[in-house]
């Protein structure tokens, strides 16, 4: 069908340039919406890691000394068994703790490398009948022989989780609205492009240009807008990751210390962002070509 690369590139670039203001608006809207999608995904993944340890209603963590004796452990177990407020508890050995530690502190490599498996304490995870008793029960174990530390500050964690899930919902909601807007926006950019080139299209049809020859530059225009929007959003996602890391290191907040974004998470997020961008761009232009291009 004689669709030379030079022709397609020239036409697409020409269309984009002619409607540069609109194209820019479309790209920016896509970029913003995809950046929101990316943030929500990163937030979800990060919070998922940081709250993993506290899933299942655990309200109390008792960390043993790495070198605690069997007798010391036994004393703890006995106490846990007899206390009426304890609903259930589980023991986490060194190996599992170490794995968890590596995941939780993946973004602090210095710390990771300075600690070996042997140094990691085993721990007990305790589920209480009444979460508000956590501090008083915590006091009982704090300072007992073999116990290194007791952590019962989980109300904040749960808040974090709840706030984060609401935030994710809101962000995704906004992003979906914006993505729909972006699709319509692209649809319209292409519609204007088709409109402003209807003379050319008439002539092309007159002299026997194939339908795809006429359509492809318009389709590619939408595709390009989606892609550029996704590229900007992709850069933004990296920026957001850096921002998270900065906040964690700068403030060393307890709540955020487990907030880890692995390269894998970031890669997946980028892929999702790109896929959506391209889909939005192509859908918008395909709709415009279908509805407004009479070939």
């Amino acid at each position, binding site marked *: 069908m*004689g*669709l030379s690369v030079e*022709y397609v590139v020239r036409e697409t670039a020409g269309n984009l340039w002619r409607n540069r203001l609109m194209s820019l608006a479309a790209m920016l809207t896509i970029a913003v919406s995809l950046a929101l999608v990316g943030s929500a995904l990163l937030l979800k993944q990060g919070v998922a890691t940081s709250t993993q340890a506290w899933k299942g209603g655990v309200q109390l963590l008792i960390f043993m000394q790495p070198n605690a004796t069997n007798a010391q452990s036994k004393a703890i177990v006995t106490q846990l068994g007899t206390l009426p407020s304890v609903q259930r508890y589980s023991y986490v050995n060194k190996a599992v703790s170490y794995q968890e530690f590596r995941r939780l502190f993946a973004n602090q490599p210095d710390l990771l490398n300075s600690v070996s498996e042997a140094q990691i304490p085993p721990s007990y995870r305790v589920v209480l009948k009444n979460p508000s008793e956590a501090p008083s029960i915590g006091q009982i174990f704090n300072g007992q022989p073999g116990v290194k530390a007791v952590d019962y500050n989980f109300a904040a964690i749960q808040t974090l989780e709840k706030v984060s899930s609401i935030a994710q919902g809101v962000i995704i909601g906004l992003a979906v609205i914006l993505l729909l807007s972006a699709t319509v926006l692209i649809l319209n950019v292409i519609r204007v492009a088709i409109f402003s080139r209807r*003379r050319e299209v008439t*002539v*092309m*049809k007159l*002299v*026997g240009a194939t*339908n795809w020859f006429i359509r492809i530059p318009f389709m590619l225009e939408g595709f390009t807008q989606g892609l550029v929007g996704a590229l900007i959003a992709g850069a933004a996602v990296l920026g957001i990751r850096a921002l998270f890391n900065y906040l964690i290191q700068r403030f060393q907040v307890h709540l955020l210390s487990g907030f880890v974004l692995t390269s894998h998470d970031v890669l997946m997020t980028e892929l999702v962002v790109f896929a959506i961008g391209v889909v939005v761009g192509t859908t918008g232009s395909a709709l415009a070509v279908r509805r407004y291009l009479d070939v």
Partner: protein
Amino acid sequence: MIRLENVYKSYAPGQFALKGVSLEVERGEFVFLIGPSGSGKSTMLRLLLREDIADQGSVWVAGKDLSKIPSWKVPYFRRNIGSIFQDFRLLPNKSAYENVAFALEVIGKSRKAAEKQVPQILELVGLADKMHRLPNELSGGEQQRVAIARAFVNRPLILLADEPTGNLDPETAWGVMRLLERINRTGTAVVMATHDVGIVDQMRRRVVEIDSGAIARDQIRGVYGLGVHQ
């Protein structure tokens, strides 16, 4: 070359723009299509260009039954047909040369082929010296010549013209007619819808008159008709 058999076409239910038209045009013929406004001349040309499909009857053009060619093949079919219109349909931001070259480009001809063919055809229509002017730097007649050059650059078998002189003053119109005659002499069939009494009467070619969608007259070496001037 062209054969219509009992062709019906309506745009709105019950109102036929063409009703039962049969017509045959041979290779190399020159046919005037005349008839009052709204009689169906443009509709017929649209069917021949496969811009529309007949409701009933069959339309054969350049050896093809137009109701049978799939829509993706229509562009290839159109490359056998040149078409010109009252409003020229030139691209205003392209020069005469570029307008003709554009027609070659969109059907996949190489730039080199264009560099060879375009000056030739512009020479033929007498615009060799105005090749690089934009349409609005050309007179109406010259613009129509560019349009003819574009329609003819692929040496089509058939040239369809819908009131090609409608916007031109009589002198300029005659220039265009002489060019169409010359193209016709190379063996291209020309079908031209027109209202121009003077041209039809002087050219004395085959005249097909349509009235209310039906053929009212088909005359070899015909004239526009009688009783027209008041």
